[in-house]
């Protein structure tokens, strides 16, 4: 596997040489590219973005010292949103460059920081900085959220900004601070159920957590079964019914869980007790659960790559949308790949 590329940005008044001692301590873990942007802000960041784009790294990290850190933050923010033709970086390192009050963007990229207002850490502790970089790399390298070729397609001019934004936002993992509709126990049970309903291939997403957040937000899909209460309440009752009628579900063998799931779907698990759902209502709720889980999974770009789907790449924001020039079986466009493997397509 090729080494990840590490882009290094120096502080205002510094030079490429500022990173010499750090680079020397990095062994050969990275393809190191020391950049010397002029100035700061968006202009300098655009120049850096062009340098990154030109090298087309499959996997890259960026580190900045002082004002170089500010530039690295801007570039990372763009890349997370697929702007400037960039794919998201694997990691960001800030040295003596903690986020200032103007750095509003909350970044999803794994970030490591080191700084001491009293000293120039880069100059005085290059081994520390190198260790920070190597530590971060050991955690993040080799686990990209999206395969590089697919990430590059999303960042390309075949995809419009609105679409890119919607797709890449799904790479975010809901934090602990967002409202939830389910209790931890309900969510844990949902996780166990979904592992059998949608046994993901090509991804390992926390579908239960994502659905929980969605339920709390109350984003309906325009309808519900007349027999069921509003969505969040139906999900809570459905899960409570499983907990009451199938205790120990989470500890069953997978094949036993499958049998239990079949019985739920057939309406054979239910209860007349207050706050629970009857068998018939369970069967209805379960079709909602299945559909929601599949929707949540397939809307994630990594799942779409696994499907080998690229229908979202039908044109960018230019006046002419590229669309597709081939429509028949066995034909493909020159830019299309087997997105599951990243390989070229062959007849």
């Amino acid at each position, binding site marked *: 596997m090729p080494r990840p590329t590490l882009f290094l940005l120096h502080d205002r008044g510094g030079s490429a040489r500022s990173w010499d001692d750090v680079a020397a301590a990095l062994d050969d873990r990275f393809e190191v590219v020391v950049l010397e942007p002029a100035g700061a802000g968006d202009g300098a960041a655009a120049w850096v973005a062009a340098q990154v784009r030109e090298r087309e790294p499959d996997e890259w990290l960026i580190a900045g010292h002082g004002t170089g850190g500010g530039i690295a933050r801007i570039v990372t923010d763009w890349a997370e949103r697929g702007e400037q033709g960039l794919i998201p970086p694997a990691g960001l390192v800030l040295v003596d460059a903690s986020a200032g009050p103007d750095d509003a963007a909350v970044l999803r990229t794994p970030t490591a920081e080191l700084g001491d207002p009293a000293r120039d850490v880069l100059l005085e502790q290059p081994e520390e900085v190198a260790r920070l970089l190597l530590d971060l790399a050991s955690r993040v390298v080799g686990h990209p959220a999206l395969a590089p070729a697919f990430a590059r397609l999303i960042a390309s001019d075949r995809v*419009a900004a*609105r*679409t890119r934004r*919607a*797709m890449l936002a799904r790479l975010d993992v809901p934090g602990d601070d967002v409202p939830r509709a389910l209790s931890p126990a309900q969510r844990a049970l949902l996780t166990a159920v979904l592992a*059998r*309903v*949608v*046994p*993901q*291939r090509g991804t390992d997403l926390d579908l239960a957590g994502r659905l929980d957040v969605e339920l709390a937000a109350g984003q*309906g*899909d*325009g*309808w*519900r*079964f*007349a*027999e069921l209460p*509003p969505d969040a309440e139906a999900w809570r009752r459905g899960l409570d019914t499983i907990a009451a009628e199938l205790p120990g579900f989470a500890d069953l063998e997978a094949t036993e869980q*499958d049998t239990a*799931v079949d019985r739920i*779907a057939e309406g054979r698990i239910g209860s007349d007790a207050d706050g629970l759902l009857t068998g018939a209502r369970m069967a*209805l709720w379960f*079709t909602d659960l*299945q*559909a*929601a*889980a*599949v*929707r949540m*999974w*397939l*809307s994630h770009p990594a799942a*779409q790559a696994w*499907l*080998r*789907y*690229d*229908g*979202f790449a*039908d*044109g960018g*924001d230019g006046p*002419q*949308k*590229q*669309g*597709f*020039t*081939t*429509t*028949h*079986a*066995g034909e*493909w466009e020159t830019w299309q790949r087997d997105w599951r493997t990243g390989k070229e*397509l062959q007849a």
Partner: protein
Amino acid sequence: MNLTGMRRYAESDEVDAVVIGTGAGGAPILARLAQAGLSVVALEAGRNWEPAEHTPDEVDASSIYWLGERLSGGTEPEAFGGNNSGTGVGGSTLHWGAFCPRPDPRDLRLASGEGVGVDWPLTHAELLPYLVEVEGFIQVSGPADYPWDPTRRYPLPPVARNASADAMARGCEALGIRCTDSPAAIVSRDVQQPHFGVRRGAINSGATHQGDRVASKASMDVTYLPLAVAHGAEIRPEAMVHGLERDASGRIAAVVYRRDGVDHRQRTKNVFLCGGGVESARLLLNLDLANSSGQVGRNYMAHPAAQVWGRFDEPMRMWRGWPSSLISEDTVRPPDADFAGGYLMQSLGVLPVTLGSSMARSGIRGERLMDLLESYDRFAGIGVNGECLPSEANGLTLVDETDEVGLRRARIDFSYGDNERALEAHSIATMRRIWEAAGAKDVFVLKRSAHAEGTLRMGDDRETAVVDRDGRSFDIDNLYVCDNSVFPSSLIANPALTIMALALRTADRFLASA
């Protein structure tokens, strides 16, 4: 669409007509009345879009779906949201499939021909000139020779077939079933659209379904609405109608709507209600208007619309090309049918989230779901639209829950009767045979229904219908309805073309009577 420079009316102006909804029913009426020199205002619940703002992302595209919650009951509870109804200037036509067959004459005379259902109060011959006019104006693409109607001509050559269409054609040919390029409300090459500008030729994207960014698809915001605005109509987006004020004689005097949280009142001489099969009936039931027949909300119909999918050896990538590019009308009256009416068949390409959710709703889950989806790029589908008979058991009622403007929500009960069940089984068997003949493997069936029709039935008898053959309410003589709610029978053709034709006729009848 471009609304700058549009003529604007004051709420205190008594306009000639207010049109509620800007979809396939409202837009042609708005244009026709404006062209006749009338002062007209359209109130649209959804926002205004430029075509380029739409997205091929399936989940994000829900911004053009009607997401106000509906409750679905019965043994075939209908899925709404992305299925059936839209919002935004252009209404559901923003996300219609653009599959554009004409209604079959036999389907308007189901009672006379087959002894079930009801006949339309108007004839196919009355509708035909309007169908042809709509096809010409929105510039439908289609085959040079239409096997089931030798006289038919389409303005533009057909759009490219996709892999599903090729495979379906292969299967049909082996079985002796006739098929051809589908009539598509998508332009197959760049064209000039009056008062809009250039509509680009199809870019062969399956995502065209959910908002066409190059305006190749004939949504109302790139066809009838620019025509209307050019002739002085005003369109007010994000205006949710929730009241109709009447004068002492019972005629409607003003339409009340909420915009940005504030209620407004537009004075008007006439109202055209074009909110679609669910919303039009929901409004009238909420206001307890135009219902001396007791028929408002009754006779709800949805097309049995089963799909049969198969896996092929070659990559099909069915998200390329217009999905519905092949049609067969050989099953409009199947010779061996044990049911009334028939069905239309079309090739299908469905995007992953919609198809996966549909599979999940059909009970496909776990490893089997994964095994099938592993070959998503090798799938091809065939789907149908079949006759649905009106039934006492099916209809729209109100529940106690209310929406954000205070209107009670709709509950739609829908169950198949024997006829729908027999038709569905026949259609599935036919589609299975086609896929077998075409060499498909892992064939699976998705049962579903589509379109929302019949809740404000049109007829000649004020005891059994809500509006007359001209779309005019029997109870309130300045209230007209035009959308799929007025359909007395379901027709098996997808409804949009018929609604547009009916809209032009409704407008003409109104103008003639005024």
